[in-house]
């Protein structure tokens, strides 16, 4: 089985089940949006997939058990961008993006030609080439976000897990980013993106997983999952839903009035 | 010293009956001179062989730790203290109406004589003191006063050497030898780094090594390979700490040992 196959994945934090029997598959070239309210378990799902949390159930990528993979091997297959945008030291943007090549490098070897190419590609994609020599800690919020995404892209893994990458980006760069993710899927990458912005999710994702209270409530095309009923029951909101050029457009309007 | 020696003296009738000493040097003078039962307590250091030449004798006396309260409890009629004894303790004892006499540490042979005499008069034991001083002078005269051109270093842990102003220097002088520390400009107790000592390579090297191995980091200088090489080429004597802390009749032992070492070198004896 190619792609990501998750079966009955559960994560417990103390006594609470944060993820409770999650199953889904993600095939090559899909751009899957994980949506759901705060605390639903979206980030936990990504963290469990990268092995940051102990979990039960099975996770396979291209038929290989993720838990049996060595850390380096897993890092060459899965790139992960957490929501936190921590940068501890004022390293140059180019050095930051180069960190994404770590899993591909031999110990103590300098960056290889292929590494340098991947770094340049990632920086070009995220429009940070001109910031190459700037200390990453001196970037604006949006620039910092883009530099960090470029780092994950430079990893050039077949599975990319990104947590709220569009937060803090201006609309133009939001669209650029979603376009980059789409381009990646076209090139064969599988992308899982946690995203609160339903408009972006509906517009760009090929498939939506709606996570609610640690389970997958709905799994399907954006127009099928993001229905008025679902938005009402899960988010407690009303929205304007339309279709433009064959794409679903969602504009949240207000809270559902409780009677 | 002169001023101190002019302190009140005790006649036989008024001789103190309950004498407490709280300094390791006065402990030793008092033990040498006191009548039976007159000295009722000595300091804890008196029993410590690292400080006291008379540690074994001190076992016969109750000890004190130099605290005003416990001294007062002993209701002494004379307290002997050193000039380095805690000032506040001495002041408190005096406020309590206790007669305290202070002794400066001996740094010369004259100091030894005058402190013995002063102790004798304070204890009402002038005759005994006079005997001790006479015996001291007789033995000192017997040791001779020939000067030799040999030099000597008295080396303590952590590379400290004893120079002019210390009892050790007086001993070296009395033995007719030259103190290396003096030549190096050390006064009192001063640091002579190992490499300086190695370059000096004294004829006689006196260490205060007690020979129980390195039990404190400061003693590592005695185990240093460079020191051992110098010690192997010099005439080496081990005269542990108490020889140099307080003066007394036993100070002549150190002079004699130094003179013997010098004589051995002069006569080419191994």
């Amino acid at each position: 089985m190619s792609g990501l196959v998750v079966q009955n994945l559960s994560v417990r934090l103390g006594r609470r089940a944060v993820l409770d029997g999650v199953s889904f598959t993600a095939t090559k070239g899909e751009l899957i949006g994980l949506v759901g309210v705060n605390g639903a378990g979206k980030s936990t799902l990504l963290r469990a997939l990268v092995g940051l949390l102990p979990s039960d159930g099975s996770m396979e990528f291209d038929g290989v058990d993720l838990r049996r993979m060595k850390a380096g091997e897993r890092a060459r297959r899965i790139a992960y961008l957490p929501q936190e945008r921590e940068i501890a030291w004022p390293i140059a943007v180019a050095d930051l993006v180069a960190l994404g090549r770590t899993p591909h490098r031999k110990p103590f070897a300098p960056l290889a030609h292929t590494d340098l190419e991947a770094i340049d590609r990632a920086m070009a994609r995220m429009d940070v080439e001109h910031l190459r020599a700037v200390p990453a800690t001196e970037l604006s919020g949006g620039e910092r976000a883009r530099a960090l995404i470029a780092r994950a892209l430079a990893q050039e893994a077949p599975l990319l897990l990104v947590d709220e990458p569009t937060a803090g980006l201006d609309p133009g760069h939001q669209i650029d980013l979603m376009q980059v993710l789409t381009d990646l899927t076209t090139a064969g990458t599988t992308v899982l993106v946690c995203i609160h912005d339903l408009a972006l999710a509906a517009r760009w994702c090929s498939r939506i997983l709606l996570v609610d209270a640690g389970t997958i409530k709905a799994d399907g095309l954006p127009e099928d999952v993001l229905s008025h009923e679902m938005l009402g029951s899960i988010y407690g909101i009303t929205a304007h839903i339309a279709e433009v050029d064959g794409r679903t457009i969602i504009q949240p309007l207000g809270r559902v009035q409780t009677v | 010293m002169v001023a101190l020696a002019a302190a009140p003296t005790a006649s036989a009738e008024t001789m103190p009956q309950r004498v407490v000493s709280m300094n390791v040097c006065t402990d030793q003078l008092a033990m040498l001179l006191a009548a039976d039962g007159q000295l009722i307590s000595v300091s804890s250091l008196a029993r410590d062989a690292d400080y006291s030449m008379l540690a074994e004798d001190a076992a016969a006396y109750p000890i004190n730790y130099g605290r005003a309260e416990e001294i007062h409890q002993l209701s002494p009629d004379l307290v002997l203290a050193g000039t380095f004894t805690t000032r506040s303790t001495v002041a408190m004892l005096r406020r309590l109406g206790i007669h305290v006499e202070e002794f400066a540490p001996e740094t010369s042979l004259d100091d030894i004589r005058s402190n013995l005499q002063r102790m004798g008069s304070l204890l009402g034991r002038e005759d005994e003191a006079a005997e001790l001083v006479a015996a001291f002078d007789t033995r000192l005269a017997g040791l001779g006063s020939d000067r030799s051109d040999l030099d000597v270093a008295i080396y303590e842990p952590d590379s400290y050497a004893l120079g002019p102003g210390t009892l050790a220097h007086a001993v070296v002088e009395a033995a007719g030898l030259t103190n290396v520390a003096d030549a190096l400009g050390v006064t009192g107790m001063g640091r002579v780094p190992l490499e300086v000592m190695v370059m000096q390579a004294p004829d006689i090297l006196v260490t205060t090594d007690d020979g129980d191995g390195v039990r404190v980091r400061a003693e590592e200088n005695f185990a240093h390979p460079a020191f051992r090489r110098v010690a192997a080429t010099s005439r080496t004597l081990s005269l542990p700490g108490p020889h140099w802390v307080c003066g007394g009749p036993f100070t002549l032992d150190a002079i004699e040992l130094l003179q013997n070492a010098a004589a051995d070198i002069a006569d080419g004896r191994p």
Partner: protein
Amino acid sequence: MRRAAGTKVLLGGLSLLVLMLFFLSLLTGPADLSPVDSLRVLVSPDESALTLVMWEIRLPRALLGLMIGASLGLSGAVLQGYLRNPLAEPGLLGVSASASLGAVIAIHSGLAAAFALSLPLMALLGALASVLALHLFAGRTGSALTVILAGVALSSLAGAMTSLVLNLSSNPFAALEIVFWMLGSLADRSMVHVYLAAPFMLAGGALLAGLGRMLDTLTLGPDTAASMGTSMRRLGVLATFGTALSVGAAAAVAGAIGFVGLIVPHLLRPLVGSQPSRLLPASALGGACLLLAADVAVRLIAPERDLKLGVLTAAIGAPFFLWLVIKHRRSAA
């Protein structure tokens, strides 16, 4: 990357400086020796006292300055990278003081006299205990403040325990030693100390030197680091043991010398583009430079006084630390 070439130049320059300071250290001392003769007997030793001084006193002192400085510089850079805290340093975090405590116990229990290796081993144990305690109290996610406060508490505790052991000792010289263990000195050390400390420092250095790439990934936080293949557990174990070995061996033979691990990484960080992996070798060399220079300085300032090394490093380091605190506060605000 242009930076790589710059780093090579920096490392070359620092190596040259280490070499110069090493020779300066060999030629500095309270005994007035001719530099030419001094170097001659180093090349062809004879039976002279000069040979003895150069080979048994000056050489071990210079070697220890080099090794201890490199160990402290490297440990400081690793600790800062690992804790992602520019204020972290073996001295400030109480690692050095705890190692000193271990060494003091080894000597005063008579263990070191019976079994020489127990000295570095006990110091190692002390250092290890303090790093583990730091983990326990502050953790790797602990804020800069928590880590420093835990370190201050550990330092004070270890210092007090050292004083206690020395005060309880019957040896008249024990109480004077508190200063040595708290401030450190290289005076009158011997090749015995070099042989005793070197294996531990080399082992510790080997563990720490390989951590550069892991520390690089940690720049982006533990989660990102782990996702890029860095095992946080492995990193933690290696950083802990490497630091304990290096700092433990240093403190066992020279006492707790502070601030080297703070000043050096901080001065060199801008020169290596802040990348932890490039900072490690630079800090090792920089630490060796600083300690050799400080040890030359204490001999020039007060040749006969055994001015403690820690006095000099603290005199430079403590104001530097305060300046860092102010800078840290500003950037946090």
